[in-house]
């Protein structure tokens, strides 16, 4: 049996519940004794959680083994968190990011905080960063808005649905979108998408300044890295072909980004020390 590379460090992972209005968020803190940086992992949309869970847990462990403390969590109404998905809004999930960032940034010792968002999480992390949260921003596969994240999930789901359908019984993504837009909720992989959620997703965008690294760094004066993920990054990116039990080695993706996080944190710390000495 082929085994994937493992980290050797004995690491502490603490799962807990974080109380927010009307719900408890499930969190896992990958604790590091003397961290060089902290990273809040802002994950993808509901249905994508199950597909990306293992690569993201491994990413968190990879970082923790390199002295970067990580906090990952489930949005309210999803996964291990409590709350009703049907009643949750993008604004609620934004609030989850803000509240957890604030809690995480207050941990001691004070070290730079990176927000890292994947897919829909990139929109949420980008918007939080735009509001002044975090010292650096890392985006993987950011869509321009939440609707694109929902749409790609829908397309994948429709593809799976069609496996069971023949000829005229096969419905297209456009058919389901029409249904949603006409006011009928749509159940996608156990999650009830409301028309409200769909409509709100169009206006829930990544800030314009985050369309490129150059404009972002200029505007925010804080490090920003934006990475487009190709099919080879499936299941972190959509469209790639995977077997049911493919558990990939993502070291090629983890390594350069871990280096970038450590490097930006080090620059930030040095700049802080320089400013203090002046």
């Amino acid at each position, binding site marked *: *049996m*082929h*085994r*994937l590379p*493992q980290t050797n460090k004995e690491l502490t*992972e*603490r*799962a*807990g*519940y*974080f*109380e927010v209005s009307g719900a*408890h968020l499930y*969190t*896992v*803190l990958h604790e590091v004794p003397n961290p060089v940086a902290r990273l809040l992992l802002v994950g993808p949309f509901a*249905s994508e*959680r*199950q*597909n990306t*869970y*293992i690569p993201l*847990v*491994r990413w968190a462990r990879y970082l923790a083994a390199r002295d970067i403390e990580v906090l990952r969590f489930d949005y309210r109404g*999803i*996964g*291990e968190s*409590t709350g009703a*998905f049907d009643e949750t809004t993008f604004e609620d999930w934004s609030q989850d990011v803000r509240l957890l960032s604030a809690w995480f940034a207050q941990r001691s010792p004070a070290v730079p905080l990176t927000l890292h968002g994947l897919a829909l999480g990139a929109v949420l992390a980008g918007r939080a960063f735009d509001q002044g949260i975090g010292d650096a921003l890392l985006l993987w596969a950011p869509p321009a808005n939440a609707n694109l994240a929902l749409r790609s999930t829908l397309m994948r*789901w429709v593809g*799976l*649905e*069609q*496996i*069971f*359908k*023949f*000829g005229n*019984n*096969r419905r297209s993504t456009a058919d389901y979108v029409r249904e949603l837009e006409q006011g009928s*909720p749509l*159940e996608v*992989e*156990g*999650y*009830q998408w409301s028309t409200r959620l769909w409509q709100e997703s169009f206006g829930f965008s990544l800030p314009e300044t985050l369309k490129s690294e150059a404009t972002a760094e200029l505007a925010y004066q804080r490090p920003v890295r934006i990475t487009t993920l190709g099919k080879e990054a499936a299941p972190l990116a959509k469209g790639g*072909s*995977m*077997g*049911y*039990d*493919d*558990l990939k080695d993502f070291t090629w993706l983890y390594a350069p980004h871990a280096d970038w996080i450590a490097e930006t944190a080090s620059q930030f710390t040095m700049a802080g020390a320089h400013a203090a000495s002046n």
Partner: protein
Amino acid sequence: MQQAIEKRELMEVEVLGVRLRGTLHRPAQSHSSRPPAGGNQERIAVLFLNSLALPRAATGDSAVYWADAVAERGYPAYRFDLPGLGDSDGETTTGLLDFINSGGYAEIAAALTKELSARGHLSGVVIAGHCAGSVSALYAAAGCRQCSGLVLMDPYFHLPVAKRPRTRELFSDWVRRSAVGKILSHLYDRVRQFRLLLRGDALPSNANTALLKRWKHVAATGLPILMFKAPGIKATASKPRIGEFDYLKHVLKLAGRRSRVQIKTLEVADHSFANRVGREAVCLGIESWLLTNFPLEDLATTAVPASPSSFGCKQGNSTMTLRPPSNRDCALEGR
């Protein structure tokens, strides 16, 4: 951060040298006017295992829903990630499907059952699993005295191929889209049906004989087993696709007369059982089965007929109309 909230508690258990993480759904006290004598001694808990590589919440968080519902009814429910999956420690391997199909998780799932039984002072544990999780549950039950019952959702008794060649996928897609493909598909089924007739009762070459052996061992002892079946590709929940070997019929025959196997066919469910009507049907099925086989002392006289609200199952907007099944990400369907 809190380790526990009103109805749930996060757990870490060291089993066979591996740290496993999971969630306990505490049983509702409102269903019990007094604690059972000797704490939980008379109590049965339900343990949900991962379905293949999915985290313990499962597709659409259906396992969370079921565990909440079971606990609401008075039975403690645990959901644990097996090694290398979800939040648990342990090495993740490629070839996970083969690993599971050969009983790779049997030992640790059995040890976990034993540990939870001891920690919770339980009289036994019902092990529940979906798809590949049901395979692990069955293997574990065969080697575990503390296992008091099994809930198996769409178990399979053959050795599926984890990844089909791309050309085969494309061909299958073309078959499903085109009118000619539909005819070819029916023709293919008939040819397979003919071959099946020639073969008689002989098992297909890709049957998981080791698993079937465990099944025979476990079912024949009279262990209560509840099995849910959802429709597959060109198949109903109760009947396989034309030309496919009828494993359901075969395992019932293997189980023998003493067996206590109950099968629920859910035409409204998809393979994941995560769609609303599907997961509600699973809720109701588990409830009535638990009450029949493991009645709670203080509930025995007050047990009410199964209904979604009585089991904490939320009533969705969906009606119980037949819906075409979905594949979902597990996708062992169509194997």
